[in-house]
């Protein structure tokens, strides 16, 4: 069905379609609309999930963990400080190999209080063992949420998935949305290690130095296996519903001399910038990174690279820039822009590319010699 929706409503609508058994969530700006919408769905009977109105995000994730380990399909949503408050439980969920799906509405961290878009909240959870995908349109928020369940629950993965959408600039904007009838796209959940009181086991007991590392390695192995699972699920999604996604979304990249890499809504705005640059005779291409964990293998050989980070690792640099610098063994021009919802237009992005100085870092809006 073709309709219009905000990013938040698209996520809630996808969650309803996936029919989780349990949703445990706590409201936080700008994610609140997701929780409200799910509460509405549950109340009007269109969603048959059990909704647990927990008293904190730490408890939201703990409740999801408790539900998930019984073999139930489980969903939650959060943002910013809520995500950070969950941090301990994010590790717990992943290491318990629980396929929980969570929408995270990317938002800056305080102080000062700032409810606008930034990726630092999710990037600071990058080592928790969660798969992370970043979306750029209302449609993609919907599609990625649906696919997240199938990817997470796949037996070669069995890790939780975080679907990230930019606060306000995607969560609150209204765009068209094609909803789908899932059919058998997501098979029934089958958690191999779900609690069975007729075959009792102890979950996550004391595990000594002679054993512990094996389980860590298996998380990494599953992250690596997830690359293929993601590709398979995305291609099956394309064949059923006609929309193809990948680890990255490329725009006029084939013959590009300079590739601009970014994430989230800035990646869409960047396409406008690429068109402007092309009109000026600069052979630029855009690459929007969708999957951050597992991190994709990018081929950037022989190209100049400009990276926009909507985040920062203090005392170090842009997190995305660093990831690309190290995995692609390439130097690049690192732009820090859009922090806390800082307005970044396609004109600004085009100028980042024009004035690139490979090997340096540029903070947008701050004097360049800082």
């Amino acid at each position, binding site marked *: 069905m073709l309709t219009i929706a905000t990013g938040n409503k698209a996520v809630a609508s996808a969650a309803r379609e996936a029919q989780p058994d349990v949703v445990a969530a706590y409201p936080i700006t700008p994610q609140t609309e997701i929780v409200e919408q799910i509460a509405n769905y549950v109340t009007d009977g269109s969603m048959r999930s059990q909704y647990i109105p927990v008293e904190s995000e730490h408890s939201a994730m703990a409740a999801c963990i408790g539900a998930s380990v019984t073999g139930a399909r489980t969903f939650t949503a959060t943002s910013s400080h809520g995500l950070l408050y969950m941090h301990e439980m994010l590790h717990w969920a992943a290491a318990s190999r629980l396929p929980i799906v969570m929408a995270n509405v990317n938002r800056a961290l305080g102080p000062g209080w700032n409810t606008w878009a930034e990726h630092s909240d999710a990037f600071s959870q990058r080592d928790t063992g969660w798969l992370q995908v970043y979306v750029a349109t209302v449609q993609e928020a919907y599609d990625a949420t649906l696919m997240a369940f199938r990817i997470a629950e796949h037996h070669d993965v069995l890790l939780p998935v975080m679907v990230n959408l930019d606060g306000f600039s995607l969560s609150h904007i209204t765009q068209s949305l094609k909803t789908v009838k899932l059919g058998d796209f997501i098979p029934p959940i089958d958690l191999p290690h779900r609690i069975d009181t007729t075959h009792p086991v*102890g*979950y996550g007991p004391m595990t000594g130095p002679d054993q512990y590392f094996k*389980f860590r390695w298996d998380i990494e192995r599953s992250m690596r296996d997830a690359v293929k699972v993601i590709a398979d699920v995305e291609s099956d999604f394309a064949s059923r519903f006609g929309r193809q996604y990948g680890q990255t979304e490329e725009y006029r990249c084939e013959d590009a001399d300079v590739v601009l890499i970014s994430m989230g809504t800035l990646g869409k705005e960047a396409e406008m910038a690429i068109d402007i640059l092309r009109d000026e005779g600069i052979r630029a291409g855009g690459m929007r990174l969708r999957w951050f964990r597992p991190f994709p293998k990018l081929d950037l050989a022989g190209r100049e690279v400009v990276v926009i980070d909507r985040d920062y690792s203090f005392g170090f640099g842009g997190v995305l820039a660093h990831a690309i610098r190290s995995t692609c063994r390439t130097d690049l021009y690192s732009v820090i822009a859009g922090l806390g919802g800082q307005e970044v237009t396609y004109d600004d992005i085009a100028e980042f590319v024009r004035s690139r100085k490979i090997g340096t870092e540029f903070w947008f809006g701050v004097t360049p010699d800082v």
Partner: protein
Amino acid sequence: MRERLALSTPGEGAAGKTGSWRVFRPVVDKERCNTCGLCGMYCPDGVISEDLTIDLEFCKGCGVCANECPKKAITMEREER
């Protein structure tokens, strides 16, 4: 199935043969024992069976049984190792 996470299977000896922890061992005077079963009821580790024999492989030697026995039928005697 791959070993994805630490799942422990129930079994005896999860903490080893805890009988080796003992300094004193309970010794039952069958003459005095009236089989009231309080020793078994109070044994924290449940190593005293229904017929009131003490599993010395696992008994940690805490002495609760001796302390609670109304007939003073259990004495704690030094382990000789």
